[in-house]
């Protein structure tokens, strides 16, 4: 490992750990205003939607994003499994199998 790689990893580790821990110390020592708590109550649903949908879109700078058909197709059985079983494990397993089948048969 060169010094370049080593120090890059250490530097990136420091900014990441600060992003993760600084808010904890802030929130511990200062009471958050009501409006901010209300705002933050939407973070889970908003960020999970964004993390999911980001995987369905293919960005093209300056143009409308394209659709990732493989991911979209594999998402359907996963969503169905979510509705039927409400089990995270089942959703993940069905999703993986669906994706493996889609690629095996080159459906997209």
């Amino acid at each position, binding site marked *: 490992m060169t010094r370049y790689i080593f120090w890059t990893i*250490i530097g990136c580790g420091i900014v990441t750990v600060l992003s993760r821990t600084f808010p904890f110390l802030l929130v511990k020592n200062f009471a958050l205003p009501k409006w901010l708590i209300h705002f933050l109550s939407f973070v889970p649903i908003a960020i999970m939607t964004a993390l999911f949908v980001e995987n369905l879109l293919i960005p093209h700078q300056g143009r409308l994003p394209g659709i990732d058909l493989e991911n979209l197709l594999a998402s359907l059985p996963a969503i169905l499994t979510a509705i039927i079983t409400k089990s995270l494990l089942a959703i993940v397993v069905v999703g993986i199998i669906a994706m493996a089948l889609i690629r095996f048969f080159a459906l997209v």
Partner: protein
Amino acid sequence: MNSELSVKSGLHDVIPTTFGYIGVGLAFGIVSRTSHLSLLAILLMSLVVYAGSAQFVITSMLLAGSPISAIIFSTFLVNARMILMSTTIAQYFRRYSSLANIGVGSLLTDETFALGMNKLNYTNHQLNLRWFNTTNIVAYLVWAAASITGALIGNLVTDPKKLGLDFALVAMFIGLLYLQLISDRSKKLLTQLIVIIFVVVALYISLIFMSANAALLVATLLGCVFGVVIER
């Protein structure tokens, strides 16, 4: 998921998410090995940085020989969403010491954040150190083990995508989003659905003008603002 906040329930709750870590961790190990990073560098990055998407960005920038400052700044941008998640979850750990808070925060990821948010719906809006540390530590160890395994088999597997493991992550977000939707009683279902649709549209439009990471952040922030406005 149940109302218990023990080590045992933590282990039980984190199992499904480990599939995501295994899939992406293997992929990271394989990709970084083929990018000529040493086993030690790969392990160090997974232990020190511990952030899936950021690690892929770092690897490709190292390969391109980018300046350290540029790589660090990109990492900050990719992980900026952590600030939002940490602020949200920190509210449930105020009663613990600063050191305990740093411990929880250091190992917080998209997945354990989402898991914690789901758990709240079953525990009367309580979280504790024992449960959260259990999920965090299991996730951390699985991530490290998966990356190093990927690095070791990197030369054998040419196409890790064939197995569909990379989709584990997407499937997990589907599951966590759905469970959040049906179990969060503090908000009306209709409100949540409208916010979801708004975030989808915001993300779609943002992607025209900015990078995927920036779009993710912008869509999330706008979604929260929108949620506050329609609930008023």
